[in-house]
């Protein structure tokens, strides 16, 4: 287990590193000029432009810039801007080009929003999706099963942002049945936290749930045809125990894989949901930083997203080994 974790953490680090290099390279391949953007595209005196560029460290060779970034990440670095020295402790993600705030602090404000949003939605999506999927699998071939499969197919073939936007418009504005989205840290007021997130949870969770109905239905239909299910029935177990104990445990394995990757993906970019429900999460930050060519913020969000992704993968592997004894972690 320790060996497994050590190996996985090493490979995770290399994935994160490669992601950072790629992001950094992409940024400079694109025709971006943050200094010009800050200075104002027109009427920018050459001298001022050079100053800004120097202040941002953009005058350095690209390799040096990247090395400095990694150094800051690992041991911290000192920024000198206009004769003012600023100590940035490890893990230093630099300062936003746009508003000069530490990126770490900006991420620190945004990550809890996204994590709250995704955690709630993920629970809804997995539990409701798998429950409905298993029920459909148990009744496969009946009219109810067909209605369910067709309706999930319809919902998941409409682009998510349209469904989400429609629900937000109709249920929170035209017919305000559900509270509008808003963000209150759970440490301030847990009731307001729930109230502000309940609509986004339902929308993100239930719309994505439709895919889980289909994944788990497919997986369960396959499992219910297995010989060991017949054995379980031959023992005299009830239909419910056979379906929800014997079949579900096997049927969940492929669903867990997709779930881990989905959750990581949602953490990295629940952009539509955050935008529609006006939540100050990571997705919104990504959008803002891209518009502003804000390299340190872009790098910071990419870093956080890739950490989410590799962590999710490790967790999926561990959960696998808990469900399936044939999977050994070493």
């Amino acid at each position, binding site marked *: 287990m320790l060996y497994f974790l050590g190996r996985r953490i090493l490979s995770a680090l290399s994935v994160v590193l490669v992601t950072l290099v790629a992001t950094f390279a992409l940024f400079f391949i694109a025709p971006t000029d943050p200094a010009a953007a800050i200075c104002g595209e027109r009427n920018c005196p050459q001298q001022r432009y050079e100053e800004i560029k120097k202040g941002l460290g953009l005058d350095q060779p690209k390799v040096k810039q990247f090395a400095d970034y990694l150094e800051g990440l690992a041991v911290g670095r000192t920024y000198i801007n206009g004769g003012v020295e600023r100590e940035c402790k490890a893990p230093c993600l630099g300062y936003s080009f746009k508003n000069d705030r530490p990126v770490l602090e900006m991420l620190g404000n945004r990550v809890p929003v996204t994590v709250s949003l995704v955690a709630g939605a993920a629970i809804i999506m997995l539990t409701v999706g798998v429950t409905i999927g298993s029920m459909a699998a148990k009744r496969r071939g009946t009219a109810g099963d067909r209605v369910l499969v067709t309706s999930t197919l319809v919902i998941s073939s409409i682009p998510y942002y349209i469904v989400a936007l429609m629900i937000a418009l109709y249920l929170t504005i035209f017919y305000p049945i559900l509270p509008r989205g808003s963000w209150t840290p759970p440490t301030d007021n847990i009731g307001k936290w729930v109230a502000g997130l309940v609509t986004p949870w339902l929308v993100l969770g239930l719309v994505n749930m439709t895919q889980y109905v289909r994944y788990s239905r497919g997986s369960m239909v396959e499992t219910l045809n297995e*010989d060991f299910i017949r054995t379980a*029935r*031959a*023992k005299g*177990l009830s239909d419910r125990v056979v379906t929800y104990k014997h079949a579900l*445990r096997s049927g969940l394995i492929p669903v867990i894989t997709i779930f881990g990757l989905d959750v990581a993906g949602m953490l990295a970019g629940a952009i539509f949901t955050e935008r529609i429900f006006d939540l100050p999460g990571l997705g919104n930050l990504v959008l803002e930083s891209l518009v502003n060519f804000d390299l340190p913020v872009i790098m910071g969000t990419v870093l956080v997203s890739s950490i989410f992704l590799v962590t999710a993968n490790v967790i999926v592997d561990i959960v696998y080994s808990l*469900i*399936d*004894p*044939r999977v050994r972690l070493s």
Partner: protein
Amino acid sequence: MTTPAPEDRKDTMAESAAEQPAAPADAKRGPSVATRERRSGLMNPSGETPYLVVEDLTVKFPTADGVVSAVNGLSYSVPLGRTLSIVGESGSGKSVSSMAVMGLHDRKRTQITGSIRLGGDELVGMPESDLMKVRGDAMAMVFQDPQSSLHPLYTVGNQISEAYRVHHKVSKDVAKKRSLEMLDLVGIPNPIRRFKQYPHEFSGGMRQRAMIAMGLVNDPKLIIADEPTTALDVTVQAQILDLLNNLQKEFGSAIVLITHDLGVVAEMADDVLVMYAGRCVEYGTATDVLANPRMPYTWGLLESIPTVSAASEKLRPIKGLPPSLLNLPSGCSFNPRCPYKDRVKGERCTTELPELLPVDGAGAHTSRCHLHDKASIYEAEVLPRLG
């Protein structure tokens, strides 16, 4: 389930025997009372009181392509302490009929008619909630492939204990103790360690032993073993068969052994029922059926066994394929493959389904064939080929 005491059972059986309609006065229009009883499975080749009685069992699966008639009017009976072997090719209905006895078919997709009585209780049409209590308790099934028939994600001990706890309200510890006993009984060394292991940590033979331990944990009176040795190699096969034999001697259960291996039949069976296209084509004691078979299909099965002395010879399969169960041939289902059908006068083989009749006019050995001189054909032509 509360199993009636043997005396009660006998009474029930006697009653249902009495309820049989009397034979029609005109003997030509119907078989005699004795034949009827035999066909209905009330009597069995040994003449003992049966524990399991299957009578005129029909299993049909309606599909998009039509109705699949997997079992057509099957009757047999098995007394306690006796082993009935059901023999036939794949698709002959041997597994389907046994699954019907266990009530394992999807009710919505299967039409079952006829009667299956276990110790006097009618299982056909029994509500699922009642059938659940019988399944795994009074009757248990040992499946073909222990690799896929055991749940890969639960320990072997857990699965055996679960089978016990379904039918006994006991603590986990009591169930564990019982499971360890069973593991020991079926000859699994070091039960305490094995209890905690998963099926993939067992060898094929050990897995089948574990499967048997699971099936027998509730001391069932009827054990249905569906090709229990097919997935095992030959030396292990013999061990598993010995185990089943010994357990039967110890517990006196009735065993229905489904197989296509006539070697297994010779070793295990007291009675043999040969199935073809969902029908019984020959039924009798093992000695009768194996030593004096009276049906070309049984001859074909016997001829297809390779013999060591004839190692250089080619295998002699039964030519042709089993018929589609969607569309059975008219007359005798075996007629398209039967090498002897020209010896029956007229078109009887292709137009008239032969009755299951006693081979010597009165005995318990029955077969379904229009041939008149079955005994002489067997002795003159088939026997020399058997080597």
